[in-house]
């Protein structure tokens, strides 16, 4: 039990450094209702349109380009694959991922504004 407390305290101290990257990635995923893997070409296109990838993606090696988009913007990406919002190998191996926020998805599903 003491060992667990020591580990927890260490994790807390690491929260702003590389060990904390997993927490930051999980925290990003918490806000996502949906996750879509996209190809590099689509990620380039999003950046060319001024979409800025999340900083947490650059903390990985190789870096990932992670975007939060509105549902209507997702429709402009021709090749995309939806994956569950969980820490699974397909999502972790993906280089570029688009997330949709919860309320925007709920609003789109009900036909209202986000």
């Amino acid at each position, binding site marked *: 039990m003491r060992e667990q407390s020591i580990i927890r305290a260490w994790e807390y101290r690491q929260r702003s450094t590389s060990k904390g990257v997993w927490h930051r990635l999980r925290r990003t995923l*918490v806000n996502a209702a949906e996750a879509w893997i996209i190809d590099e070409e689509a990620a380039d296109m999003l950046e060319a349109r001024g979409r800025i990838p999340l900083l947490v993606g650059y903390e990985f090696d190789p870096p990932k380009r992670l975007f939060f988009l509105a549902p209507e913007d997702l429709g402009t990406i021709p090749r995309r694959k939806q994956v569950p919002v969980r820490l699974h190998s397909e999502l972790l191996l993906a280089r570029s991922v688009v997330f949709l926020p919860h309320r925007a998805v709920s609003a789109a599903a009900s036909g209202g504004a986000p």
Partner: protein
Amino acid sequence: MLPILIEVDFRTRLLQTLRAIAPVLQEPGVMVAGSEVPNLLEPDARSSLVVSQDVDIAVPVDRHAAVKSRLGEMKGLARSEEEPSVWLPREAGLIEVNFIGWDSRSARAGETYVIEDAELPLLVFGHLSLLRPGLMREIENLRIPLPRPAGLMLEKLMTDRSGEKGDRDLLVALALLLVSDENDLMEFEAQYRGVNPDLRYAVRSGLSTLSLLEPRLAMPDPTRHRLLVADLLARLERTESDP
């Protein structure tokens, strides 16, 4: 077996066990703790969650002697030879009873320690100090003391268990969140503010892990309540930036 049959059977066994230990439950301060609490908070104690096959009973450390004197009045259970704080069913239809120490008032409150005793040794879990006595549920003429959801939810989110057991702790926290109202959440937030920074981080980390868990049979489905979890996490984060 059909899930509904499992549920009915488990509810019956849980209530029969609580009836068997009713003399102990009458002692002031004693309450059911752990994963069976959300089951008992459901309407009519429906007990739709099958987390474990035992029930935890929190014994206030200052009531240790009084509780010990009531153990002989319990029916259908016998003390485990290997682990005397555990009482095992001697009759069909009962589940295991696990006595744990609860210290919210002494100078050692918040510490994890052991009360050595031949009849009723108790492992006093530090985080259980967050529990606060809650409502007395009356089900089928049985009075069942329960903790308030806020403290237990906080304690479950601080879980330091890993793997399946840790995930189940988090799902119990979700079950408590689902029966919580705004007053419970305000209490949860106030208790959260009162714990040290690394435990607050552990709570937030627990919520983020909970948000990403897969559904499990007979447990609340975390994928259906991800927005609720995200909102609670955002609420806690806001308190971190409060003066």
